[in-house]
């Protein structure tokens, strides 16, 4: 579905991403893990069009999309969430989701009056129900709890009916109970969409991923299904620290 080939990006002398290659299979959950500073977020930014790579390619279903701007990637079916909640805090929950739905409308309807543009409202209502946010539809996103805001983050991504859903630490700052809910939610999405996930919560990753990529110092250290990752001594040493490796 989405394939990364020999991707590199430097910031000054720092090689944040160093010849990274991997492929995310359709309708599977592919996770990228690694210690802080491993280059996970940079890799995400390169794929989602936030940053331009120095070299390498990104392919979406065989088409080269390297360096495409974010708004075009979104149109092509790549939706991303953000590690630090990045929403329209001054707008209502419904309006956040409706606004995302609206981008699917034909461009020549952009001067249509909002109350005559009913399809996005209907779709947004459905999405809010699915995500259990219909109770707070009229609330300002800024007034929601952190957990609900993280939910809206995923909801507006799904509103774009993406083919690839990129989630940047969706459980960031969440309680264990909330994490478990997101766990179920992501699993339920996986049948419909290709998920690419960055996550710090190792249990969550091991639980839901079909494929795991371990990054370390900008490079891909290991790649494989969760049980192999768990068993790999190299991963233990780099990621979990020396004491785990010894144990």
């Amino acid at each position, binding site marked *: 579905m989405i394939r990364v080939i020999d991707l590199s990006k430097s910031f000054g002398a720092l090689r944040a991403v160093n010849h990274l290659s991997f492929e995310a299979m359709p309708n599977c959950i592919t996770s990228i893990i690694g210690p802080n500073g491993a280059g996970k977020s940079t890799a995400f930014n390169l794929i*989602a*069009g936030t940053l331009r790579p120095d070299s390498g390619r990104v392919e979406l279903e065989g088409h080269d999309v390297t360096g495409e*701007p*974010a*708004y075009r990637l*979104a*149109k092509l079916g790549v*939706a*991303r969430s*953000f590690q630090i909640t*990045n*929403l*329209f*805090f*001054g*707008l*209502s929950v*419904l*309006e956040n989701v*409706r*606004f*995302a739905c*609206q*981008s*699917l*409308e034909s461009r020549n*309807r*952009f*001067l*249509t*009056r*909002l*109350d005559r*543009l009913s399809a996005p*409202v209907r779709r947004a*209502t459905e999405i809010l129900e699915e995500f259990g946010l219909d109770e707070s*539809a*009229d609330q*300002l996103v800024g*007034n929601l709890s952190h957990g609900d805001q993280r939910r809206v983050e995923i909801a*507006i991504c799904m509103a*774009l009916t993406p083919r690839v859903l990129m989630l940047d630490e969706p459980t960031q700052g969440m309680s264990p109970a909330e994490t478990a809910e997101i766990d179920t939610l992501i699993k339920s999405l996986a049948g419909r969409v290709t998920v690419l996930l960055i996550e710090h919560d190792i249990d969550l990753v091991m639980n839901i991923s079909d494929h795991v990529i371990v990054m370390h110092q900008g490079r891909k250290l290991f790649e494989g299904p969760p049980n192999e990752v768990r068993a790999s001594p190299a991963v233990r040493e780099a990621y979990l620290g020396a004491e785990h490796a010894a144990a």
Partner: protein
Amino acid sequence: MLQAQQQAQTTDIESRPAGTVAGRLLRAVRSGGSNSTLLRQIALVSLLLAAIFPLFGGSFFTRLAIEALLFGCIALSVDILLGYAGLLSLGQAAYFGLAAYVAALMYLHVTQSFWLVLLTASASVGVFSFLLGAVAIRAKGVYFALITFGVAEILSKITHNTRAIGGSDGLIGIPVPSIRLLPGLEIEFANNYVFYYLVLGTVCLLYLGTRRILNTAFGSVLRAIRDNSDRVPYLGYNPFWYKLLAYVMAAQIAAFGGLIYPLLRGFVAPHLFGFEVSTKAVVMSLVGGVGTLIGPLMGSVIITFLESVVGSYTERHLILLGIIFIVFVMFLPDGLCGLAQRTFGAGRKVKP
């Protein structure tokens, strides 16, 4: 300032009776401030007051009211950018001045046809705002303000130093033409009352047109840009074109005011491009209420009349403008419309 504005808007929505779910949802969609019932009522009352004003105003104040409406166009244009796209322009006077100079030069040297002058001024402002906008919009926050400020100052200096277009004296003796509205229906600008109602009518149309345009899918993209422009591209919109369109549209509205100005005062001068005019427009929209569209027009009337009254006592009326600015920023950031929404919106929950 904007946050308070948004809060005022949302409290307004929430306080309404819930009704059906669909109705509630649609109301939430129409969260654009310019569309709330109270703002419509304010607009209607303002229009009524404006319509009967010349009966009491006399010719001096009627002409002053025309001036207020013309400067109100700049304030409206500031509001489109600040209240909807989140762009603070400190150089909207550039388009007022540009249109005023183009109009003056056309009347003096080329034609007496109002429609031809309208077309020329509007086209020059259109081209200029498209080019400047395409550059300025790439800059964020304060840099956008600085670029717009800088370019307006450059235009002011160029006119100031160019002898051929009057230099520091500006252009004087601009003939007052008549407009052929329809074949056989000529309207004289020389008659203050006719002039007043003509300008009032046009400003109403500009206000309604702007409100209509901002109450569309396009307007909702602008509101999203104002709220969090970094997120917008990830939802499939290229913010650049939306901002540019808003910028060109705002410039056209400021240009209308500028185009009429020489007909009112009979002269144009470099100060029309100046910082004082641009900032005054910002203060006007702040006083009326940013993001309400009607507020800036009210603000313009208030500031223009206040300045005229105070100006007859002291040269230093700018001090007053500064004080008003500070007071509103500190105590009433959502302006008079915001105050009205909080006062008359009975039973409104105020969010923490």
